[in-house]
């Protein structure tokens, strides 16, 4: 992946080559354990070393985004305890681990989260940052793929596209559940819009991998790592997956993502007006 797509590449190279801090980095950094800023944060710090050149070193931080509902809002399908541990410990852990890795690594500054994931995936030979970055993104996406009072069916355009690509919503639902139950080990199940094939598809990924690395557009996801259902369902993965489809999945969020995706992927025949 070339660096030309990374908007602030000039800042990246400048900060790593021309700036030599006297004090160890830990002194310059103010450790913040839970920044709640949603966007990748940019902080400019003045250097207070002896040289006092007035040169700033730029740090990129990622924040732990809150789910769009309170932690007990998904009861009785997902308990508050699960959300507290899954979001508050696992997800937060990935964010903090990622920030710690980025402190030491100048190369990867200046990227949006999407770019960071694609770059650190490195075409299948991932850097160490990939796991943390991808898991941060995956969990953000997952919380937003659910809502209290979810389930039921999609409507309008999304439903039409599902019916076109899977035959019927029932068939899609069956296939999705089957995919979740036949995923060996830890991973995620996705409904994606494939850019090249211009259709919806169900995709299973292992561990932290997500469809962004293949340049596809995720529409909805389900976490099938054991930690996402073990406290509430023990080993009954089938019950968890069915509950997700019937009561948790947010077709509203999926519809919004579908609309946005259609700005990038042309799904229909172009309507060329006849003169």
């Amino acid at each position, binding site marked *: 992946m070339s660096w030309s797509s990374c908007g602030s590449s000039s800042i990246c190279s400048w900060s790593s080559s021309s700036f030599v801090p006297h004090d160890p980095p830990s002194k310059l950094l103010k450790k913040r354990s839970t920044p709640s800023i949603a966007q990748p944060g940019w902080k400019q710090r003045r250097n207070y070393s002896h040289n006092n050149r007035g040169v700033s070193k730029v740090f990129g931080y990622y924040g732990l985004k809150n789910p769009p509902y309170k932690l007990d809002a998904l009861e009785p399908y997902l308990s508050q305890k699960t959300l507290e*541990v899954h979001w508050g410990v696992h997800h937060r852990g990935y964010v903090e681990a990622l920030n710690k890795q980025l402190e030491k690594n100048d190369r990867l500054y200046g990227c949006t989260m999407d770019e960071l994931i694609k770059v650190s995936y490195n075409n299948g030979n991932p850097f160490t940052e990939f796991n943390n970055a991808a898991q941060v993104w995956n969990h953000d996406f997952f919380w937003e793929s659910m809502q209290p009072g979810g389930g039921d069916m999609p409507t309008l355009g999304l439903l039409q596209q599902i019916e076109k690509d899977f035959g019927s919503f029932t068939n899609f639902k069956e296939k999705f559940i089957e995919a979740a139950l036949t995923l*060996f*080990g830890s991973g995620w199940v996705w409904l994606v819009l494939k850019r090249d094939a211009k259709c919806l598809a169900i995709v299973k990924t292992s561990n*932290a991998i997500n469809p962004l690395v293949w340049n596809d557009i995720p529409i909805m996801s389900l976490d099938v*790592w054991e*930690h996402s259902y*073990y406290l509430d369902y023990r080993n009954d993965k089938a019950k968890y997956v069915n509950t997700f489809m019937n009561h948790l999945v947010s077709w509203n969020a999926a519809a919004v993502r579908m609309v946005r995706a259609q700005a990038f992927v042309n799904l229909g025949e172009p309507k060329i007006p006849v003169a």
Partner: protein
Amino acid sequence: MALRTLLTRKNLANSPMGMLGLRGLQTFSLPDLPYDYGTLEPAISGDIMQLHHQKHHQTYITNYNKALEQLDDAVAKGDASAVVKLQSAIKFNGGGHVNHSIFWKNLAPIREGGGEPPKSSLGWAIDNHFGSLEVLIQKMNAEGAALQGSGWVWLGVDKEFKRLVVETTANQDPLVTKGSNLVPLLGIDVWEHAYYLQYKNVRPDYLKNIWKVINWKYASEVYEKECP
């Protein structure tokens, strides 16, 4: 086939290790634990042991048997693509059965020798190869904690070179997938189901505590068989 007449369909359910199906296909059943579920506390809770044994391991066995039947079918029909398609289910579920069967033998309650350091040839080989038991434990804990997703961390012996190895495998891959000469002495399950109810996401704590109930006697026996 005198054996056949003895093992009628009704008796099949009671045989301990394998059962002969109608076509001579051997299927598998859940091995009993040589200790009670609660006797590994506080290192591993009784809840986890029960779920792990009765639900997870049983599921692997059930699905393995199912896959074997389907394989038998496909082989009999000469359906090559069906045979190939079944391989991942066999590897996963069969591996799950193999690995967990070893795992139960790797554990023992403290009053039955769990946690007692290895002596004789295995103890000597560990000191020789790693420096000390502590170093080996550190190494296995580090590799186990670093493993992303689900898998196992193993202490194995290369039966050709008579050398100890520490390896990790993903999902339910048995140790042989990392080397056909590798024989597992000790495996630690680092799938989340093995520790989540008790340790949540703090896998390092689970790894630190499990050594208190590790059954080195079994590991020594296997080692002495491979390296007499």
